[in-house]
């Protein structure tokens, strides 16, 4: 069950994109999300698509993983495409089926929106596929650091996130184990009416919570004994390094942005 979750999974490699600093990648993706909305004609959308394909190439990520990342949002994609096709009534009618009329502008908008969707999903997937969750956390912590002045507990949030990430595999194994143990005792999670299924979740959730609390308690003890008392006076072992790749990446995005502004209607 858990094994199939590929979306958001980090695939280690040594590509150009992998070697970039998480800060530059985060900035890149945030900026890209805005830039995408600049496109409004065939040339600009083609440019977006080409640029995305280029980034995919640079990341050396197999298309399989990107397509898989698309699966959860595919329904949304088809839905928005259909909405545009059916409700935009401009330009010539290019296709008619009974009372359903498909207009040229509708088709064009439908395709544009789908491309926008596609490039956004691809770019964010590339971020998570090429950056380990812990690096993303590091990047976010540094980028959000100025907010400390506004009393935002940036360090604590980042630590919470990194511990949560660290324990995900452990807790997944645990869930699997407890589920199997209860199934071996005749509990059935996958069959029967909804009421029974909800009841069958209790034997899974109670042990999981008990164990999670026990782990949290142990972890808190271990952290305290190892001298943890908040972010004050701490040094950082994980150092982030900004190099030519990061500058190149952002310059490239800036160039694409300028092109888009120039080429849009």
């Amino acid at each position: 069950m858990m094994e199939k979750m590929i979306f958001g999974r980090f695939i280690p490699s040594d590509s150009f994109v992998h070697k970039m600093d998480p800060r530059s990648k985060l900035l890149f993706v945030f900026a890209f999300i805005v830039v995408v909305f600049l496109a409004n004609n065939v040339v600009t959308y083609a440019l977006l698509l080409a640029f995305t394909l280029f980034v995919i190439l640079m990341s050396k990520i197999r298309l399989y993983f990107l397509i898989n990342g698309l699966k959860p949002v595919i329904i949304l994609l088809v839905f928005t495409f259909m909405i545009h096709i059916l409700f935009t009534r401009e330009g010539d009618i290019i296709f008619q089926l009974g009372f359903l009329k498909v207009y040229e502008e509708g088709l064009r908008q439908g395709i544009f929106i789908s491309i926008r969707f596609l490039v956004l999903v691809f770019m964010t997937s590339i971020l998570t596929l090429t950056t380990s969750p812990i690096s993303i956390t590091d990047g976010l912590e540094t980028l959000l650091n100025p907010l400390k002045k506004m009393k935002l507990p940036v360090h604590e949030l980042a630590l919470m996130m990194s511990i949560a990430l660290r324990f995900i595999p452990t807790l997944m194994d645990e869930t699997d184990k407890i589920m199997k143990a209860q199934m071996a005792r005749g509990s059935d999670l996958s069959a029967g009416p909804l009421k029974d299924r909800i009841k069958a979740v209790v034997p899974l959730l109670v042990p999981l919570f008990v164990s999670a609390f026990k782990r949290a308690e142990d972890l808190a003890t271990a952290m305290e004994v190892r001298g943890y008392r908040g972010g004050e006076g701490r040094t950082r072992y994980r150092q982030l390094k900004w190099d030519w790749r990061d500058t190149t990446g952002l310059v490239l995005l800036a160039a694409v942005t300028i092109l888009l502004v120039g080429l849009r209607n």
Partner: protein
Amino acid sequence: MDIKLQQVSYAYSMGTPFEKYALFDVDLAIPSQTYQAIIGHTGSGKSTILQHFNGLLKPSKGQVHIGERVIEAGKKAKELKPIRQKVGIVFQFPEHQLFEETVLKDIMFGPMNFGVSEAEAEKRARELIKLVGLPEETLNKSPFDLSGGQMRRVAIAGVLAMDPEVIVLDEPTAGLDPRGQREIMDMFYTLHKERGLTTILVTHSMEDAAKYADRIAIMHEGKCVLNGTPHEIFSDAKTLENYRLELPHIVRFQQKIENMMNQHLSKICLTEEELAEEVSRVLRKGRGQQ
């Protein structure tokens, strides 16, 4: 109840780039009422194999025979409940599966899932709590108020309450203190004998395998590489070493004595009692000759 694995292979994450085989062509027949130990290194496939004994995992290739039932790769396995009632599994650290408000309810959970009446389930719980060495008052307590060792016993009672014919034990004594370990292992052995159970012990402990098992199977890198009586298995130290396994402490000690005496004892001794007897016999004989 007989259990038989025929050419069983199992792969995790089938059909994704993460596909990884954990078992390769495993053949293993466990006749009814055998005490079968399965030993092997961490990652040898032990815990994957044990989940095949009651249909928690379905083979990717091959067949698993559980009594009359056959679970076959590629075919839908329906109605696994009867199998799960007959094959009870005590997982590693089974105390993690406790969830009910009282010990009594937790022990009754298994049997009631299999359609046993409430009265009967309660009767079993009252018998079993004593069998696992806890006072009857424990039944009304919350399992979470008990010590780790007591929780372990309650969890074991919960599995036994299903009245299984086959009992699968995955490192049942891990983390217990020496007395707890001995008590639990002896209890399972008594049950095995008295109730004519088929017992499958998955363990790291060569000592337990030597002491209790009729037959020992050795798992190595997903394959079942050896299966024989303890005497057969432990008389071949070289082969064991190849599978990165050690002889039981008692057998290693026997070797030291044999080296010192410069002669072999007449057999491989599997318990301390047996070895002491054998050494004293050799010495008496030696004295007789002088």
